[in-house]
């Protein structure tokens, strides 16, 4: 289904004429509980910030023919069409003119709470768009293509696909199939197969062959098949440009194989159910391991083999952190997808784990995070006061420690004054005894200065609050304000201080 030209910012005639005008008493606009009609003024919001945000119910969105002729019961999607139909019955009819004064821009959000378009800043600009989106994304895929296996929820999508499915196919000499000519041309121009041909007399490039077995679905799939991971379908000639993971030591191998690698060793880590073993075994090895273990402490008892996804996300995060620390003997190339061998799995939700910020492992992979932001923030608040010692940021050498006098403030935005070597990192992560002296001497500071963490922090809990004082200090008020703004109705204040959770999000768990 081709996207509409001009489908973005102008309210379509349909909108002002029919949908929300209240002329369909059987299906009034229903707001979902979570998003009442409201105006939203987000900075940088792509659409008109004064636009009215409309939330329709799933039923309204899925309804196809809401305007029904009373004579013959024929249904129409738009009131205009119904009115025109009524003329045929010699009934009085009236076309609503689009009134010039009421051209208020309307945007529509998706009622599906977990959907990205549920957020008003991602609202869609026209009614048809949101209906189609809802149907496509959250609706049942009832329409199936005969020739290939694709399924569609929206009939027009299915029709559009059927028109082109298997109709045109271009085949490169290397064997790759394309259904679009421009992709074919672009590929062919650079294809190794052509390079081999150059110099020989040849006819025009082959006309599209009759529809053959369609490889898979759309182009991207075809391209994906020929794309990076291990080898393209065509045997690459042994030219310098042939993709080869082993070509250069500098460049990492392809992502896909990489992701398989750590599963084994990581499983070991998992099985040990203890990151202490990780630490001890790798203590002399890399900062990365330390970081990694920070991000994924232990596995829960139920965890056996880690699924690939958390693997991958942890890798990149671990690599990220590892990259932060200077690592002179680092031979790593790409970061995101080439994790170190002893990578533990998955990011964790912190249990209140003492000095570790990132605690228990949570089975992350296919599921979205199962906590609300409020709960997460509350948990952040729960972490003990030693978190100041275990400051990740300090570990990165950004801030000085609280009590030691030998540390100093870094000017982060200016020249880099220090090298965050292993020890400082470890220290910052609370992995070394924080005794002010040894670890901190490792930090090369520009100058001594008053510590960022003044005395006020040393005596406060993680939130930067005194045990009794709520809202003391800028950080704490910041977080409490944040919690309040995000948490909405939860009783946030009660959860501060003594480490009690407000009961709402912490129900009896499964």
């Amino acid at each position, binding site marked *: 289904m081709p*996207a509409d030209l001009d489908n973005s*910012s102008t309210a379509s005639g349909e909108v002002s004429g029919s949908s929300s005008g209240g002329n369909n008493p059987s299906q009034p606009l229903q707001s979902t509980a979570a998003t009442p009609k409201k105006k939203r003024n987000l900075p*940088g919001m792509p659409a008109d910030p004064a636009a009215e945000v409309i939330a329709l119910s799933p039923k309204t969105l899925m309804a196809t023919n809401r305007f029904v002729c009373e004579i013959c019961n024929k249904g129409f999607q738009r009131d205009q069409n119904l009115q025109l139909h009524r003329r045929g019955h010699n009934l009085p009819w009236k076309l609503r003119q689009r009134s010039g004064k009421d051209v208020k821009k309307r945007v529509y959000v998706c009622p599906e*709470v977990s959907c*990205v*378009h549920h*957020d008003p800043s991602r609202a869609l600009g026209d009614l048809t768009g949101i209906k189609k989106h809802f149907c496509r994304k959250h609706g049942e895929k009832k329409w199936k293509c005969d020739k290939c296996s694709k399924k569609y929820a929206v009939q027009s999508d299915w029709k559009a696909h059927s028109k082109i499915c298997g109709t045109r196919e271009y085949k490169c000499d290397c064997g790759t199939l394309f259904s679009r000519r*421009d*992709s074919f041309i*672009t*590929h062919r*121009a*650079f294809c190794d197969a052509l390079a081999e*041909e150059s110099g020989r007399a040849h006819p025009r490039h082959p006309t599209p062959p009759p529809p053959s077995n369609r490889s898979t679905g759309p*182009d991207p799939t075809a*391209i*994906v098949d020929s794309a*990076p991971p291990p080898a*393209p379908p065509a045997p690459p000639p042994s030219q310098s*440009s042939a993709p080869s993971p082993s070509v250069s030591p500098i*460049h990492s191998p392809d*992502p896909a194989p990489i992701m398989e690698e750590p599963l084994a060793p990581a499983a070991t880590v998992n099985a040990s159910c*203890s990151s*202490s073993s990780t630490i001890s075994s790798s203590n002399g090895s890399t900062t990365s391991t330390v970081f990694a273990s920070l991000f994924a402490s232990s596995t829960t008892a139920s965890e056996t083999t880690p699924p690939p*996804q958390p693997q*991958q*996300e942890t890798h990149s*995060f671990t690599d*990220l952190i590892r*990259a932060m620390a200077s690592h002179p003997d680092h031979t790593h*190339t*790409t970061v995101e997808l080439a994790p170190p061998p002893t990578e533990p799995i998955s*990011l964790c939700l*912190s249990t*209140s784990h003492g*000095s570790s910020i*990132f605690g228990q492992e949570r089975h992350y992979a*296919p599921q979205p*995070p199962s*906590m609300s932001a409020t709960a997460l923030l509350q948990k*952040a608040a729960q972490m003990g006061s030693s*978190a100041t010692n275990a400051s990740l*940021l*300090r570990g*990165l050498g*950004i801030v000085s420690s609280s009590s030691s006098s030998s540390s100093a403030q870094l000017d982060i935005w200016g020249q880099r004054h220090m090298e*965050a070597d292993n020890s400082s990192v470890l220290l910052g992560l609370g992995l070394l005894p924080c005794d002010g002296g040894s670890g901190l001497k490792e930090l090369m500071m520009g100058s001594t200065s008053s510590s*960022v*963490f003044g005395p006020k922090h040393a005596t406060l809990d993680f939130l*930067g609050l005194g045990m009794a004082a709520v809202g003391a200090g800028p950080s704490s008020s910041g*977080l409490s304000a*944040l919690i309040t703004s*995000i948490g*909405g109705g939860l009783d946030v204040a009660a959860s501060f201080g003594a*480490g*009690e959770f407000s009961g709402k*999000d*912490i*129900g009896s*768990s499964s």
Partner: protein
Amino acid sequence: MKTELRGNTAAASISIQNPTTAAAAAPTISGALTGCLGSLDGACIEKLLLHCASALEGKEWTLAQQVMWVLNNVASLSGDPNQRLTSWFLRALISRAANVCPTATMHHFDGSSAIDRRRQMTVTELAGYVDLIPWHTFGFCASNSAIFKAIRGCSKVHVLDFSVTHCVQWPTLIDALAKRPEGPPSLRITVPSVRPPVPPFLNVSCEEVGQRLSNFARFRDVEFEFNIIGGGGGGSTTTSFDNNNIALCRNSMYDTFHRYFESLLTSLVDPHQLSSLFRDDEVIVVNCQNWLRSMPDDDEEQSAGSSLRDDFLHTIMGLNPAIVVVVDEDADLNVSSLTTRITNCFNYLWIPFDALETFLPKDSAQRIEYESDVGHKIENVISHEGCQRMERLESGAKLCQRMKNVGFSGVMFCEETVKEVKSLLDEHASGWGMKRDEEMLVLTWKGHNSVFATAWVPGGLGEN
């Protein structure tokens, strides 16, 4: 539940426990794990990001750390688009916090060059990469179509190609020219030998790319010549950042790029040099694709009256081209306020993430690669300042104003072009659309602007 946690707590001696905090470990989080996802929507995440950024700016480390922790639990490279996007943002924020800014002597890589050392693609892979979503091909199609129209009847055409996609734009133009009723013109394509150190990275040299283009042109019976404005010694020394030279730290990469570019501009205004670069009877076409954003245009330069970006445009205009096509992404990422940049970034870069989600599975390597390229951009925008912040994107509207200020007139895209672009989009996922906004043609995803394409001519010659 509690027992389990405690057991794990003891076993997971990630850290040397501070004894006092063990007590604080008591409240279990297991229940929290079953909380609702609902509140973690884009607005919420954006808020968290902004809080984190302002905490970092305000040196409120504890708060920043707390927010990062929360974000860390939201982020997931393999989750839904918001989660994936968040993880790149978080990474950029951490990178900013760490301000790992390599000096020339450091061999290790910082958070940013970690992303830099991406896998380099083959040309074939690159062709597939640009094909994934119409993000680039939209611009190619609109530009090539406008160029084609502008050079109707010309027999000698010289294209100055300033782009980051290694000439994958040109095969379709060559193909179209080959089928011209009056026959193809003789075509020259000239590229600078240096490109900004941004993805996509190629594993072959500029010369190799040119060679393949030449092969293809020959195959289509189009007279063709490929030139590189070398950093020294013509086409032989290609100081391409792609094949690198990992030891080259980021600072000097940017410096080199800027210095090269300044010298390029100098040579483009030097009449003596010009005569060697250009021939009298050829029609000049300038193609700027995702390029202008790398031209320095920071605050100091703006206040000084003219930036390298403006100089570049003036120089281009001085060549009296038949047409100048400018394609770039439609977002304002060159603002000085960090929080505004984060907001703009977040409210813009969700688009490619969302689009990829539509048709690629969560663990697709291609998708991840594409997303990490976007992550690269996020990191540059958020965690770098000064000359290291190469990504200084300005929106289409601003660019149009800039072009007009320099003295260009906009050329409207003709109906034929619009049709071509539309049929290109038809073949992609149905969320892609297009709209016209004065002289801009804008690619939209679910109605939101993503990429704009424009065409210009010098002076008052345009059809505007």
